[in-house]
């Protein structure tokens, strides 16, 4: 992989110069958290770790119209926009790679594909906090799925070129980058060592698919189910959750019908409800078990890797503490002080 270096002061002008390819989006502060927003690159916060909602929103928007029906005919509709997304961390890019595999397997989703082709992905290195565990899911570094990747060192960026598009971009901006030196490589190795020592989650993910499979009938699922609010937050914030619902809506202003798709969740009761009223997963425990077996076992047998990238979003988002870490702790008999594990919910 080709690597260059860039002076810190060049990053904002560089990102601004990318507006010629489309809207430049990056992480900006929202309350105590971050979101990807279309702002002037000067406002991007390079210390942002995990955004509230992952970058999947650019490829499968929260809600979008896919077809229109007017005067007896169907029309393909797309809200696709050219975008440059800056600030994706290795876990985010791994998640997008899973998305890519999923949305192009067997049938290629044309909306996903056009969104993907319309987007430049520019990664950014990160230093983990106490909730990050990408070191356990083997997603703490990334080799593919980006056009450029910026590693932020003390006094400079190292820029990794991941695609011909990325190479073209740098070639046109050769005044902003320089070749790397032996010194730079030394600095990078130092930085990596420092980063590796920063991970704090002390847990083993080894043998997890087998453990989850064997725990199919465990009462842990019922305990979690009793506390689960079925709010769907875990699935909305999870960067590898792909499910959607499709719904027709009639727009009286335009006199046309829109067929929309929107994010959906296996935590919702209706998800497994078939016409006629039978529900295949009436109990919350069954829905939770589906989610975790799909993430940790199913993906493993299908793609060779679990569908958890260790971003920690579920860890910081679930109001009752149901998340990959607390479940792994429960299933492996480790100490677990999650709300769901220590609270007795009085179900009526």
């Amino acid at each position, binding site marked *: 992989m080709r690597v260059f270096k860039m002076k810190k002061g060049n990053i904002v002008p560089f990102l601004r110069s990318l507006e*010629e*390819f*489309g809207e430049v989006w990056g992480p900006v502060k929202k309350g105590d958290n971050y979101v990807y927003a279309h702002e002037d690159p000067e406002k991007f916060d390079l210390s942002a770790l995990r955004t509230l909602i992952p970058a999947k929103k650019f490829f499968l928007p929260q809600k979008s119209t*896919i*077809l229109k*029906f007017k005067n007896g005919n*169907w029309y*393909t509709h*797309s809200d*696709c926009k*050219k975008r440059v997304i800056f600030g994706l961390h290795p876990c985010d890019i791994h998640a997008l790679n899973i998305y890519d595999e*999923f*949305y192009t*397997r*067997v*049938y290629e*989703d*044309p909306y996903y*594909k*056009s*969104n993907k*082709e*319309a*987007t*430049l992905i520019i990664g950014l290195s990160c230093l983990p906090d106490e909730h990050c565990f990408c070191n356990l899911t083997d997603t703490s570094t990334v080799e593919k799925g980006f056009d450029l990747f910026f590693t932020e060192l003390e006094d400079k960026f190292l820029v990794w070129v991941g695609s011909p598009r990325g190479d*073209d*971009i740098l070639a*046109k901006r050769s005044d902003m980058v320089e070749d790397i030196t032996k010194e730079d490589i030394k600095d990078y190795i130092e930085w990596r060592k420092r980063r590796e020592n920063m991970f704090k989650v002390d847990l083993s993910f080894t043998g997890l698919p087998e453990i989850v499979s064997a725990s*199919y009938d465990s009462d842990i699922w019922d305990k979690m189910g009793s506390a689960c609010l079925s709010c769907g937050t875990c699935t909305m914030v999870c960067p590898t959750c*792909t*499910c*959607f*619902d*499709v*719904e*027709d809506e*009639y727009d009286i202003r335009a006199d046309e*019908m829109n*067929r929309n*798709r929107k994010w*959906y969740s*296996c935590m919702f009761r209706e*998800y*497994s*409800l*078939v*016409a*006629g009223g*039978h529900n*295949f*997963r009436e109990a919350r425990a*069954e829905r939770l078990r*589906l989610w975790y*077996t*799909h993430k940790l*076992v*199913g*993906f493993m*047998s*299908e793609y060779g890797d679990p569908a958890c990238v260790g971003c920690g979003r579920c860890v910081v988002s679930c109001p009752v503490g149901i998340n990959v870490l607390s479940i792994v702790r429960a299933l492996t008999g480790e100490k677990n002080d999650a709300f769901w594990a220590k609270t007795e919910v009085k179900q009526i």
Partner: protein
Amino acid sequence: MKEKVEILSCEVQKEENPYKPERARIVRKYDLTNDVRFFQVRICNPEKVMEWTTNYKPGQFMMLSIPNAGEAPFSITSSPTRPGVFEFSIRKVGRLTGKLFELKENDFVWLRGPFGNGFPVERMWGKDLLFVAGGLGAAPLRSVLLYALDNRERFGKMYYLYGAKTPEEVLFKNEFEEMLQRDDFECHLTVDKDPEGNWPYDIGVVTTQFKYVKDIDVNNTAAIVCGPPVMYKYVIQEFLELGISEENIYMTLERKMKCGMGKCGQCVVGHKYTCIDGPVFTLWDVKTIRNLI
């Protein structure tokens, strides 16, 4: 002057869009029971009629939609050996089917597909076939049954056991009565109850019909079951007692689907997507995946 470079594109392939349905016309419809209706549907585009109706497998399904009322999967009741039309047997249960039942002959519906794995009919060539259907389960099985009858020479012995709750709920009664006359295959009908007392055939649950199954080569038999969820357990028990192996027991399952292409996730069971990995599963799949039935 800086050269403007187009490195990104945002075109959606409009013609190849697999979400975009194809117009079809209802050419025939009639009631099979008081809440199940038979629909014969023809693709409007003449260039696509033969292409679509010859290139599918028994056991596959189509996504059928009516604008505003939505879209849902329906198993194809017809067989690719009788091309030209698609046939569906549909129970009125919800918003879409309610709207569908309001439609008349010559009205339009919209189709996408076919989707799903279908029955591995080629793998069944040379085998004895044992069909067991319950209630509306006769709809998806009709496709593979007609296929087998139209390719009769490719299969060994054939049994078809069909049970419904009452005589009123028997689907395709006329067709079955014709089949009873055939000497190259055995068809047995039963009902759980016969309140009117006019039913000329057996009374009892479908598993009682296994007494007619004789002289099949259990090591070379494909058993196919489709019916309401409660039925599976008992029928599968019978298959296993006959000595048919788990990978030769096939069933076709029902789930909610919004795309048919393994994306929307609503049909997921374990890590399988019923729409692409199914809807036809073997008993071995069912045991491994769990929660399937």
